[in-house]
């Protein structure tokens, strides 16, 4: 299942993450004509990040189309279409612009299967470009995964590598359950040499990106390259960090986490969204409970600050970087 220690940005890379996601959509649409893509500006424009580029031209505007500007309606329309037998893949243009669709997600998308005793699954994929680091003005850099992960009935997935972005999206489209697919927008232009169609393992499985013995960095999405950089730096000082990319927040790969932290005895959970009440709290609490007797240091979290995402000129202070991760590693190494 694991992808081993694939380089996150291979030097002479022909494929960006944005292109890999585009290929995943295109391949899924070609294979199954029930797959439809819609959202704001996904048609002629190809999306503000060009992720849906060319799909309308290739598959026609009944398979890939622009919607009116109404996120709740986009989400609800997807639900209705899924009930009818389609597999809608909808785009929320930016993280914060999924908020108007929350009622549809919480009250219907997440619950429809359960409400109907399994009679009505709603295999909708919701693509959400998320996170900061691109100099976006307010509302363009939120990380909202914690809201979704706390809502039973949803799968929550986020790739960190080009290969995973293709594979996890294909898995998401194949899934009979609704999947919230978080696209780390800062990594849209990261590149790798990837042979498509790639499949890197099921939703619900984490991947060790780098093996290590002293401590485990648990991360996902945008913080995976950050942790890789931190691990590389630490290695120079003789500290071998294991980097565990969760890939899937729900379901969570407890086994992979436990197995890694059980070995290293130290864990630092790293994510970009607000730390307080964030997804990292769940991971940290689980580790602290499940690995209690094997921990040599407190589980610490390196996360976004507990503030609204700051303006572009301030975001470098907000975003967890390798230095901040290494500070936490230092504290963990000093302990126990």
């Amino acid at each position, binding site marked *: 299942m694991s992808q081993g220690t694939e380089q996150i940005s291979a030097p002479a890379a022909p494929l960006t993450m944005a292109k890999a996601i585009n290929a995943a959509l295109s391949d899924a649409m070609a294979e199954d004509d029930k797959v439809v893509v819609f959202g704001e500006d996904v048609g002629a424009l190809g999306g503000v990040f060009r992720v849906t580029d060319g799909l309308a031209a290739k598959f026609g505007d009944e398979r890939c189309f622009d919607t009116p500007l109404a996120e709740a309606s*986009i989400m*609800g329309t997807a639900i*209705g279409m899924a*009930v009818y*037998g389609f597999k809608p893949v909808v785009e929320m243009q930016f993280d914060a612009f999924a908020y108007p669709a929350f009622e549809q997600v919480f009250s*219907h998308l997440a619950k429809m299967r359960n*409400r109907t005793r399994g009679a*009505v699954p709603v295999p909708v994929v919701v693509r959400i470009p998320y996170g900061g680091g691109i100099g976006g003005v307010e509302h363009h850099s939120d990380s909202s995964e914690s809201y979704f992960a706390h809502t039973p*009935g949803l799968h929550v997935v986020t790739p960190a590598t080009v290969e995973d972005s293709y594979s996890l999206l294909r898995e998401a489209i194949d899934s009979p359950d609704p999947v919230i697919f978080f696209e780390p927008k800062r990594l849209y232009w990261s590149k790798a040499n990837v042979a498509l169609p790639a499949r890197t393992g099921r939703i619900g499985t984490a991947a060790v990106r780098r093996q290590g013995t002293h401590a485990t960095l648990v991360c996902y999405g945008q913080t995976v390259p950050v942790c890789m950089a931190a691990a590389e730096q630490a290695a120079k000082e003789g500290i071998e960090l294991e980097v565990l990319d969760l890939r899937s927040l729900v379901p969570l790969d407890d086994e992979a986490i436990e197995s890694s932290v059980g070995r290293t005895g130290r864990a630092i959970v790293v994510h970009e969204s607000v730390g307080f009440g964030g997804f990292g709290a769940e991971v940290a609490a689980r580790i602290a409970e499940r690995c209690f007797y094997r921990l040599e240091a407190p589980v610490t979290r390196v996360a976004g600050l507990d503030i609204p995402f700051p303006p572009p000129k301030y975001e470098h202070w907000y975003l967890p970087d390798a230095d901040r991760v290494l500070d936490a590693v230092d504290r963990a190494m000093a302990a126990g």
Partner: protein
Amino acid sequence: MTLLDLSARDREGKAATAVRPVWDSEPLRYLDEHGAPVEGGIRPTPALLDPGALLRGYRALRFARAFDTEATNLVMQGRLAVYPSCRGQEACEVAAVHALEEQDWLLPTYRDSAALVLRGIPAVDALTLLRGTWHCGYDPKQWRTMPQCTPLATQGPHAVGLGLAAKLAGDPAVALCFFGDGATSEGDFHEAANSAAVYQAPVVFLVQNNQYAISVPLHKQTHAISLADKASGYGMPGIRVDGNDLIAMNAVLAEAVQRARTGGGPTLIEAVTYRVQAHTNADDAARYRQSAEVEYWRRRDPIDRLGRYLTARGALDAAVEAEIDEECERYCEQMRAQFAEEPSYDADEMFEHVYDEMTPQLKAQREMLRAEEAAK
């Protein structure tokens, strides 16, 4: 069909849909409050006035009333957790269900349990939500009937999705979506109506304007005189109809469903009616309305009205009434019997439908619960 004065226009390539504004008109009706054809009313096609069809409608009205009354009894006996009655609104329930074919989708709210049983769903399954034994007790795909929707207006976008899906699939299916008057104030109502019009999706938006949203009267919900006025903003026909006049309801719905089915896009219908009971059994309507108002509307009862019309035409007499009484009584007896027994509940089921495949975390929680039960 030339039932309604739809002034066709086509400008800048738009489909011709918008109609004259309706806010200055009385609701469309065929029968006056005494059950006589009203002067200047609509002129339904002969098929819509066929006595056999109308008697079928009358039976359905009576059945809906009997069901609603029995459900009200059940909640008082503690057999249901809560019950929102549709008493007084039966013509809307019946007309909606009768307007649909099997392949069409119905999107009911919590108040439309009568529509569920009219569509054929067994009462125990239809009342599962309100009994508290599960969220939805029937298979929505089998009945082409979505689960009753509680978060107001959120079913609107689902109707758009179902309609759009049918359109893309090339199926002649239509989605008919119920709303209350209060729900028209919600953003989801607007987004759904607007999107349906843009997609020209085969959807009928049927607003049962029963004058109240719990305690809040219509004039605190809208400053317009008619809810159907919203239609022109979406570029779709908007019809205001007497929701207690089954003949008018049938006519208006037949046209809207037909238009949707044949590619003419969505329609917004405001059915003017009245919620005779309190919001639910838990509500106390005396806090916010006068009994004189209720009396006024009781005189406009949809069943009496059609009954008098059919009696005057010789299509209904005491013998038929007695037959219907008996049918209804049999059905209600059966309901009582079915609800007398408590079904058994399986705690495991709580974990089974959250995902297609149970997550390891849910399996662990199921085990915890099993252990707790075993320890009891």
